[in-house]
């Protein structure tokens, strides 16, 4: 039987087992929406701005092992989505974005709501397609899901002209995809893995540095087993938090620009570094020249060959799925009688413990003002470390990374690569939908939250009981911090004057709002929010305006050139 293109789109989504599509209708996708309307298997979540749709699909994907799907119309629908797509691309999040396009005969005519979608999104997608023939629609959508979820994951966009959604074709959903030009290596090279294992066993000052790739590869259990088996210290990147349990004594905290003193010192001073699913980016190792000054052997496991030896030359590159490579490593170590030199390891841990004694995350707990760190710490304690936490971008994001100890992967949802303000709330919607029973908190700031505030309306419509923790310091905090440190206290445009009354705002959207101004009220407010299981609660914490994030590596400096709170 012949189906229309619009019917085919819906059938494809059903075949892929898609539960939710996040989207916003418009002229070019009306046929698809009409078909969505006629069925119940694929549920649609109507956002209030297309950026929110893509972030929600992203949060859905990050907090599960499923592929998020967004559906938007042509022209402005697409351009509004670009921030969301670029966010997912930078963090390698599997996602399929379906976009409407003007009819094929109108393409290139500057038609109403026309834009060059494939051209605009080309640099920020893993791949994209323009479907000009309805007979290619099903195979293209199949390819999109396959490409999004395999190899180094990423967003894949399918642009569908309106006439293609009307035209008819036989529907056959392909079971498999074969692309002669796309065959990601999944298993690591056996010889390289052997070499790596020997290096690890011979190490005297080892360090494990794990990133978002471990989470994407669902390899947290393997990483944890390997690290515990060897007794090595382990650090996680911002994207990797939860890949190794945050409460494990072998965990040294996050590393990088706002990482712990001990993690950064150990990174610099180790003799063998096992880098897994991480990419030595500028926020992680700071100045690469400074990093090279110390001599160490580096093993780098990553699915993407272009991530290896990009910023830092490595000694043992291993290309493959992190999970498969770690499985092989574990097999070799478990079947060998050899173990790392216990005495050397003991003395290395001694050094690390000395660094830990600096207590670099210490903050003033006697203040009469609410310290943002305290709010995060209380949130951690009162949710037993079990919440899904999304964030926006800035100081609050770093404080969650430092003070909320994630024991499990896929619980910490933030925009690490692109650093997208406005990500937190819509991402939390996706997280809550795929984890309906879980506590989902969105830790944000008064600047970030206003970038996608309209999604409060979506939360109302779909009864999403997100707990918004607004660390309100009346400044774009991280911008203000840089201006204080590097721009002679000239706070150019980083002050938020004329803020809304967030309590009234939350209430206007039909939610609960609470304003908290004293440290003594923090716990009670969080308890109240957690008690209201069915309601979205907006907690507006009026925090210390001038609190800074420490430790901090200034831009262009090396890992060990940190500024600590105690030094100021």
């Amino acid at each position, binding site marked *: 039987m012949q189906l229309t293109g619009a019917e085919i789109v819906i059938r494809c989504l059903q075949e892929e087992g898609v539960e939710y599509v996040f989207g916003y209708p418009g002229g070019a996708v009306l046929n698809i929406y009409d078909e969505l309307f006629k069925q119940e298997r694929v549920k649609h979540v109507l956002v209030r701005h297309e950026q929110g749709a893509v972030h929600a699909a992203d949060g859905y994907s990050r907090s599960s092992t499923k592929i998020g799907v967004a559906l938007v119309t042509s022209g402005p629908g697409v351009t509004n989505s670009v921030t969301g797509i670029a966010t997912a691309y930078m963090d390698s999040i599997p996602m399929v974005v379906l976009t409407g396009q003007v009819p094929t005969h109108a393409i290139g005519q500057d038609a109403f709501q026309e834009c060059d979608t*494939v051209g605009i999104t*080309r640099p920020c997608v893993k791949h*994209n397609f323009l479907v000009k023939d309805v007979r290619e629609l099903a195979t293209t959508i199949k390819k999109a899901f396959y490409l999004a979820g395999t190899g*180094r994951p990423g967003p894949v966009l399918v642009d569908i002209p309106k006439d293609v959604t009307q035209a008819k074709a036989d529907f056959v959903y392909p079971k498999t995809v074969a692309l002669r*030009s796309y065959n990601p290596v999944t298993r690591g090279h056996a010889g390289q893995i052997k070499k790596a294992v020997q290096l690890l066993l011979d190490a005297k000052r080892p360090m494990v540095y794990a990133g978002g790739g471990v989470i994407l590869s669902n390899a947290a259990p393997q990483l944890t087993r390997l690290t515990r088996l060897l007794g090595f210290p382990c650090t996680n990147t911002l994207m990797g938090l939860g890949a190794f349990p945050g409460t494990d004594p072998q965990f040294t905290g996050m590393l990088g620009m706002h990482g712990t003193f001990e993690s950064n010192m150990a990174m610099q001073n180790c003799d063998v570094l096992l880098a897994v699913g991480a990419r030595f980016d500028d926020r992680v190792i700071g100045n690469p020249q400074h990093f090279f000054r110390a001599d160490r052997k580096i093993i780098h496991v990553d699915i993407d060959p*272009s991530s290896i030896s990009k910023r830092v030359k490595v000694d043992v590159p291993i290309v493959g799925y992190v999970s498969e490579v770690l499985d092989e490593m574990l097999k070799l170590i478990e079947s060998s009688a050899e173990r790392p030199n216990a005495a050397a390891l003991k003395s290395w841990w001694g050094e690390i413990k000395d660094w830990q004694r600096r207590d670099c995350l210490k903050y003033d707990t006697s203040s009469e003002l609410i310290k943002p760190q305290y709010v995060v710490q209380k949130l951690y304690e009162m949710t037993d470390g079990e919440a899904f936490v999304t964030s926006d971008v800035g100081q609050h994001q770093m404080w969650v990374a430092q003070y909320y100890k994630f024991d499990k992967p896929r619980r910490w949802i933030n925009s690490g690569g692109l650093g997208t303000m406005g990500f937190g709330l819509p991402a939390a919607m996706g997280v809550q939908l795929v984890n309906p029973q879980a506590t989902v908190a969105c830790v944000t700031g008064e600047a970030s939250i206003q970038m996608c505030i309209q999604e409060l309306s979506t939360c109302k419509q779909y009864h999403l009981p997100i707990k918004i923790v607004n660390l309100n310091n009346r400044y774009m905090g991280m911008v203000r911090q840089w201006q204080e440190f590097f721009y002679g206290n000239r706070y150019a445009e980083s002050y938020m004057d004329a803020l809304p009354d967030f309590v009234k705002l939350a209430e206007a959207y039909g939610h609960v709002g609470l304003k908290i101004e004293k440290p003594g009220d923090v716990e009670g407010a969080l308890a109240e929010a957690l008690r209201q299981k069915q309601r979205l609660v907006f907690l507006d914490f009026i925090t210390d305006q001038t609190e800074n994030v420490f430790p901090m590596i200034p831009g262009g400096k090396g890992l060990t050139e940190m500024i600590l709170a105690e030094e100021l």
Partner: protein
Amino acid sequence: MRHILSILAENESGALSRISGLFSARGYNIDSLTVAPTEDPTMSRFTIVTVGSDDVIEQITKQLNKLVEVVKVVDLTDGDHIERELMLVKVRAAGKDRDEMKRLADIFRGRILDVTDRSYTIELTGTGVKLDAFLQSIEPGVILETVRTGASGIGRGERILRI
């Protein structure tokens, strides 16, 4: 260092923009780029001449390989290879220049494709260096127009690039 990259890619509309876009987005140089379908019409072959350190060339190669439409990438300059470029040059050929121009074309094994009483159009094939040498050997004022294809290249002997 100058490198010649040969790329086999799906003969699809987006491939060229994806490949050229990669170079501009990541700040790599393109000295020249040529592309045409191969004997298999579903496949295109690109030849890109670029300049960069070994590290940069390694990154370019890896990034190209990552593109979904790219099937294979080879750095021809890694081994023995043949490199050719085609140039068409229209020169003023009047008076005493006319004989001189003919002689010069012969010396460089060029062919005169089109003749008017005032001009010659000369076809010249060779390495880029040879084409440069030809242009340098004639007076700049005599050159009316040039068009060059950019380098194409192929490995010598048993070095074969195919899928």
